């Protein structure tokens, strides 16, 4: 017993996903629920024993041993015996414990087949995007229902139900564990990439809620994207583009909100707080993403984020290039939110009135009716153009649309500077 032994940050969360993955691979995806229960049992057993006996010298091996035994017990008692059962038992009894979980922000991801297999299962295209995100967080990420609910600002019962339905769907469709057929791989990868993008945005959007858990969700998305991009079975330009995009945005996390919860726009952020290691890794990932011919939205978004990351200040940013990237992105997506961002970039190149004109020209502006950033940006541009009356009116409109306390505080503070 090594009492002085400190546990690696997030060890249990990491290890939970790892153990569920390994047990599910061994038992087959129809025993997914059993694997989950066995792993939870093992973690609870640790909680009841380690306070008295101390932390074992090899916590990961200890946990896996217990989880494996619990899985065997459950198989024996659960009347799940079938012809295959003896073979499963033999395999489960002889398999080695999975390797130790690496720390969360390790740059070198584990090339772990089991976790990748579980991720592909959890993000199966037959599930809705929301269900895929919740299931990936629960199974691979080791998040609890309560934690996922807090990150999504949803009721626990909603998330619990979503998970139950998703798992039932996987079972009913008899979705197997492991690498899909080569012909099926591209669509399976798209399904994972979409889910990870959504997972990251869920964590990244500082709309409201528990920031700590949202950061964890964003970094889990990064961890899984790293795995996807680095693993030889799944590596592809769009996985690298996704990873680049996430890293370059995450690099700005430390400068985005202060201790009091005040939001800072990109232009006001203290760039010395940006995480240089994440930027370097992001730029590297962007390089790797350029190896294919196809340009995806993630490529363009990552390219824009890279322009910001490379600039020493808001003023020194390569705005003409950003406008070009937004032109392409708008052509690909037709998204009014992209059009708003493009208008900001245009205002940097051609002045605030050009930006305002670009905002007015957005197709489908009705979709932005409840989007507080539109009037907030208009307000900033009117202020720059010297029309404080119009600026104040736009800010008031934005305050009324604010979706979170930090957002409201931020907008109110802007307004107080004007009036």
């Amino acid at each position, binding site marked *: 017993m090594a009492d002085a032994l400190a546990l690696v940050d997030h060890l249990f969360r990491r290890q939970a996903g790892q153990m569920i993955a390994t047990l599910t691979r061994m038992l087959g995806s129809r025993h997914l629920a059993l694997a989950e229960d066995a792993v939870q049992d093992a973690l609870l057993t640790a909680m*009841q024993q380690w306070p008295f006996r101390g932390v074992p010298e090899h916590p990961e091996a200890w946990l896996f041993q217990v989880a494996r035994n619990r899985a065997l017990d459950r198989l024996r008692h659960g009347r799940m015996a079938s012809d295959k059962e003896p073979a499963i038992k033999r395999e489960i009894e002889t398999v080695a414990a999975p390797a130790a979980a690496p720390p969360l922000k390790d740059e070198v991801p584990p090339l772990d087949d089991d976790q990748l297999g579980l991720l592909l299962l959890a993000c199966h295209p037959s599930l809705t995007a929301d269900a895929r995100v919740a299931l990936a967080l629960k199974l691979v990420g080791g998040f609890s229902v309560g934690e996922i609910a807090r990150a999504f600002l949803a009721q626990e019962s909603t998330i619990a139900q979503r998970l139950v339905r998703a798992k039932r769907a996987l079972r009913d469709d008899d979705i197997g564990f492991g690498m899909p057929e080569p012909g099926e791989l591209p669509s399976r990868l798209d399904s994972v990439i979409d889910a990870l993008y959504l997972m990251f945005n869920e964590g990244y959007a500082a709309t409201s809620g528990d920031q700590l858990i949202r950061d964890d969700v964003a970094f889990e998305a990064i961890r899984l994207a790293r795995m996807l991009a680095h693993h030889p079975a799944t590596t592809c330009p769009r996985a690298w583009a996704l990873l680049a995009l996430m890293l370059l945005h995450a690099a700005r996390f430390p400068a985005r909100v202060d201790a009091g919860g005040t939001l800072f726009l990109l232009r006001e952020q203290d760039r010395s707080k940006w995480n240089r290691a994440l930027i370097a890794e992001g730029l590297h990932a962007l390089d790797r993403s350029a190896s294919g011919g196809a340009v995806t939205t993630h490529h363009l978004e990552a390219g824009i984020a890279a322009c910001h990351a490379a600039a020493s200040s808001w003023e020194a940013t390569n705005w003409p290039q950003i406008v070009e990237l937004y032109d392409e992105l708008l052509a690909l997506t037709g998204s009014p939110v992209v059009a708003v961002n493009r208008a900001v970039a245009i205002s940097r190149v051609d002045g605030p009135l050009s930006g305002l004109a670009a905002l007015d020209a957005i197709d489908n502006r009705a979709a932005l009716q409840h989007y507080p950033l539109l009037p907030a940006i208009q307000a900033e541009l009117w202020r720059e153009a010297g029309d404080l009356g119009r600026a104040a009116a736009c800010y008031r409109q934005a305050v009324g649309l604010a979706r979170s306390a930090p957002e409201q505080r931020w907008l109110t503070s802007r307004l107080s500077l004007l009036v």
Partner: protein
Amino acid sequence: MKTFIMLLHDAGFPEDISPEQIQAIIERYVAWRQKIQQNGRKVSGHKLTDGQGRVMRGASGQTRITDGPYAEAREVIGGLFILEANSYEDVVELSKDCPHLEFGSIEIREVDPT
């Protein structure tokens, strides 16, 4: 230094406890023990098996054995610590930040040295 026994009565842990929370709880117990050991005191911990124990009562020549000693399975003693301290007050002071207090109660008894 005197010897004290701390009996940790479990009142149950929250349901849907996350791996992250479980790790945090373990770390708090470990930190609490380290804090006590830093003062040069000896602490040993013993986990008891889950569930009820047995209580034996000899009455009028017949021995009666019951599950126990508690009526509620929820109240079982999950484990115990044996530690050195100067007095009850000393143990109480050391245990004010024991994470167990969030999940149950602690019974402290001094071992009679004589």
